[in-house]
């Protein structure tokens, strides 16, 4: 394989906890992989199991939920 496989990952972030921590990670310049695509939710409890399947069937290789 010539090109290295870069997984596409869907990340659900809670507005009040993990989104703020992602923000902090950015501001503090902590390095982390750029494979995640962030989806902001008002609460991680809002993430319906169906969203996960929808993500996987529409092109993502993995789904993370951060609360």
């Amino acid at each position: 394989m010539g090109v290295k496989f870069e997984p596409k990952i869907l990340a659900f972030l809670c507005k009040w906890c993990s989104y703020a921590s992602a923000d902090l990670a950015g501001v503090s310049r902590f390095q982390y992989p750029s494979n995640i695509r962030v989806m902001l939710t008002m609460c991680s409890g809002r993430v319906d199991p169906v969203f996960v399947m929808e993500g996987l069937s529409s092109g993502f290789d993995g789904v993370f939920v951060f609360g």
Partner: protein
Amino acid sequence: MQVVGHLLEIAGIGRERLQLRWVSSAEGQLFAEYVTELTQLILGSGSLDRERFKLPLAAAKQALQAPPLRWLMGMEKQLTERENVFHEKLEAGSYHLILEQRAEEEYQKALLCETLREGPKTVRQMAQETGLPVYTVSLRLNHLERSGLADVSGHEGTTFKFKLLAA
């Protein structure tokens, strides 16, 4: 999330493709660490072959929309810690067992629905396409028939063919 994990596992997609972590707003470092660690994990599992898993993906999604399963999800505290009107409680173990069994059942039914979407099929054809045992196909098909989702559409020699009724 436990149910989705179980479904991903029985569908052969892999439980590790869904990850849940707790990060507070003060833990930027932790967030970066988790993303690094989990991305490595997905990297190890490789790309998800959407063509190959088309049927399981669609079925898992449909199963998660099934009302009986949705009613059960997130009821753990209610059913295992609080009593019902008869002062009966469920063991945590039996609650998880019921949840997983129900999820598997809904998944298998959804799998059959998905294969029948392409047109009428015999039980053996369905078993071959879904990879389920013939007996399981018959059981789930019986459920679908009774709930008015499938019916006999004709014969192929002496074998019945089944079709999906408009849901």
